[in-house]
């Protein structure tokens, strides 16, 4: 690899069900300007744009990056648009990092967003395939049977999902950008909330949010001179597998396990549970936290739920997960992956304020998408090596 990449600027918008106070370009500029301000740079200092978002049908605007390019200072610059389903926010950051690592650009602005209130995300996700039956109601309808399969396979206590949801919803109060900040959230409130797709309850489910997240990435000599310490990208990994095939394990997908192993090997990490201080991972339905602990190698197979039950993933635990409140608290679909990557970077730059993990030096950002088939992840650290 020719070059090392540092995250020198991070910007997020306030996430909400409907950001009717801004247009689409306005939403993106809110995040982009914050990232540029964090890096103390202007539009002219950026060499290329990498934009990521989920299906165009979520806003009813085709190839929206074309329309948005000049609002982001893109005129005369290279503009790429990544789309890898739900993992897109993460993949976008990975593609942007490779532009720096390949030595092609000095500074890249990457931004991922969704203004899904403009269309109807539930409709967009309930794929009514031609020649098929519309029985899978949204993403939850696809994942609920998988969650049930995990419960059976692992023998996990039935309230594991409630405990993760409670933790994330409490963490959200410490994140000024979070969409859902529920007053007096409690175990019983979550347990009593309506079942949407049995066994997943309403308060164990992510919201639909509008929002954007932006990162400024720079090559190492420029990152070293940035006004605030950079988050060094130690490694990135992406893997994909087909949606359905005979013998597929949808509960502990091989693509996720392989990507994680590759990620740790490239970063020189031998014991992830010990060497990684905290993680921001993609948990849109609370049971996924337990499942991803296994998939990421933080817990042995079948035991991820123990980390949840023991409080290991709480802010004060030994492997804090989703300190920001996670996808359960804010979910602009195209941005959610990049928000995880950004929050991981904020932790190692000591920028996370009330939800900061003290002394965090190395953090994992993770995203997944499709039918649990696309995975993108990165490790960032305050140390370059």
């Amino acid at each position: 690899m020719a070059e090392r990449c540092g995250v020198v600027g991070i910007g997020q918008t306030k996430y909400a069900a409907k950001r009717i106070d801004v247009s689409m370009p306005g939403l993106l500029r809110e995040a982009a300007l914050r990232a540029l301000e964090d890096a103390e740079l202007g539009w002219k200092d950026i060499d290329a744009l990498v934009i990521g978002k989920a299906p165009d049908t979520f806003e009813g605007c085709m190839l929206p990056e074309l329309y948005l390019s000049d609002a982001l200072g893109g005129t005369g610059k290279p503009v790429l648009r990544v789309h890898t389903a739900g993992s897109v926010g993460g993949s976008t950051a990975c593609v942007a990092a490779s532009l720096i690592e390949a030595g092609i650009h000095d500074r890249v602005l990457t931004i991922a967003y969704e203004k899904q209130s403009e269309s109807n995300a539930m409709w967009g996700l309930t794929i009514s395939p031609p020649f098929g039956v519309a029985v899978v109601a949204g993403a939850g309808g696809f994942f609920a049977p998988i969650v049930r399969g995990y419960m059976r396979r692992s023998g996990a206590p039935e309230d594991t999902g409630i405990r993760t949801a409670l933790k994330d919803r409490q963490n959200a109060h410490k994140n000024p950008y979070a969409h859902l900040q529920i007053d007096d959230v409690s175990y019983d409130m979550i347990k009593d909330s309506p079942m949407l797709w049995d066994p997943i309850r309403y308060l164990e489910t992510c919201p639909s949010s509008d929002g954007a997240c932006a990162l400024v990435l720079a090559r190492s000599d420029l990152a070293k001179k940035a006004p605030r310490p950079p988050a060094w990208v130690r490694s990135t990994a992406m893997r994909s597998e087909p949606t359905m095939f005979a013998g597929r394990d949808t509960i502990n997908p091989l693509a996720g396990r392989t990507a994680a192993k590759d990620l740790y090997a490239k970063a020189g990490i031998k014991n992830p549970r010990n060497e990684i201080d905290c993680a921001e991972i993609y948990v849109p339905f609370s049971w996924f936290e337990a499942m991803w602990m296994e998939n990421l190698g933080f817990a042995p197979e079948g035991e991820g739920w123990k980390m949840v039950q023991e409080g290991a993933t709480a802010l004060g635990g030994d492997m804090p997960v989703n300190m920001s409140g996670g996808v359960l608290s804010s979910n602009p679909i195209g941005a959610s992956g990049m928000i995880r990557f950004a929050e991981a970077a904020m932790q190692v730059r000591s920028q996370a304020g009330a939800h900061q993990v003290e002394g965090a030096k190395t953090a994992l950002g993770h995203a997944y998408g499709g039918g649990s088939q696309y995975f993108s992840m990165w490790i960032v650290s305050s140390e370059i090596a």
Partner: protein
Amino acid sequence: MRDVAIVSFAQSNCAKETERNEVEILLPVVAEAVKASGLPRSEIGFTCSGSSDFLQGQPFAFVMALDAVGAWPPIKESHVEQDGAWALYEAWVKLQTGEVDSALVYSFGKSAAGDLAEVLALTLDPYCVAPLWPDADSIAALQARAFLEKTGKTERDLAEVAVRSRRDAKSNPHAVLKGDVTADELLAAPYVSSPLRAHDCPINCDGATAMVIVAGERAKKVVPRPVWIRGIDHRVDPPALGVRDLTRSPSTEIAAGKAGVGRDRIDFAEIYAPYTHQELILKEALGLTGGVTINPSGGALVAHTLMSCGLNRIGDAAARIMAGKGDRAVAHATQGPALQQNLVCVLEGE
């Protein structure tokens, strides 16, 4: 920078594919490109594709395409919601990082499935322009009118581009429109959107394209004449039509400079010009003067598979070089209303 070469290329185009779905069209094209690459599928380090959900009429349209590429065991893979030419760019960048040494690039789309010109209206400003539903042919026509008035070129000059393209397409098995026709015959037809007639507009069709690229010396070991990507760059112009001079393509000029078009002689160029007047604008922007052969394949006017047409230009140029019909060529791809975004690459045979 690492040297990266195109080692194989395959495409399929047809007027309208009613029997097969996108995956079934893609499967043999990918198989052909992988086989011709000389690399076993398991050795290909990265896969990247280009496609559009709105074109397909389904969100997450690219997901089912994974079935055609053998993504098991899991693969390093990515996707851009852009023409395959940009998927090639992302793959080329991945090879530059040194993480992988080869990549499979593919794209597909059924442009004949919906009313493409209407669907493309959704790429315009969603607040002030798209609600008027200006179709893509009319947007191109605005540009054509401005171009004719500024340069003094005529509708006959545009028709001659179509005449030449169809004549050259006779030797292209993948072209959908081919044959001998005169400018007078073409000019007798009514306008589609003045000053453009049917022959000035692309022939939208269904199809898929695949290509394999390899870095370094390995390229020479797997095929007799790899085609090196000597330079590749892409740029974008502002979206608002009134803000730019539609008779020029500044993004193409910048990309051509960065890709090194002017550094040495060019034998021929494959330009993605879906409309006749755009070929003239782009030829100028690429700095191609004199007798450089333009679009020996016939170009987008004889086969326009949206999301693949740009990759097809690059592939057609590479195939021509591999066959010994030239040594150095320019290939170009465009996207967006009235040539808003452009990619240029310079190819050179071993």
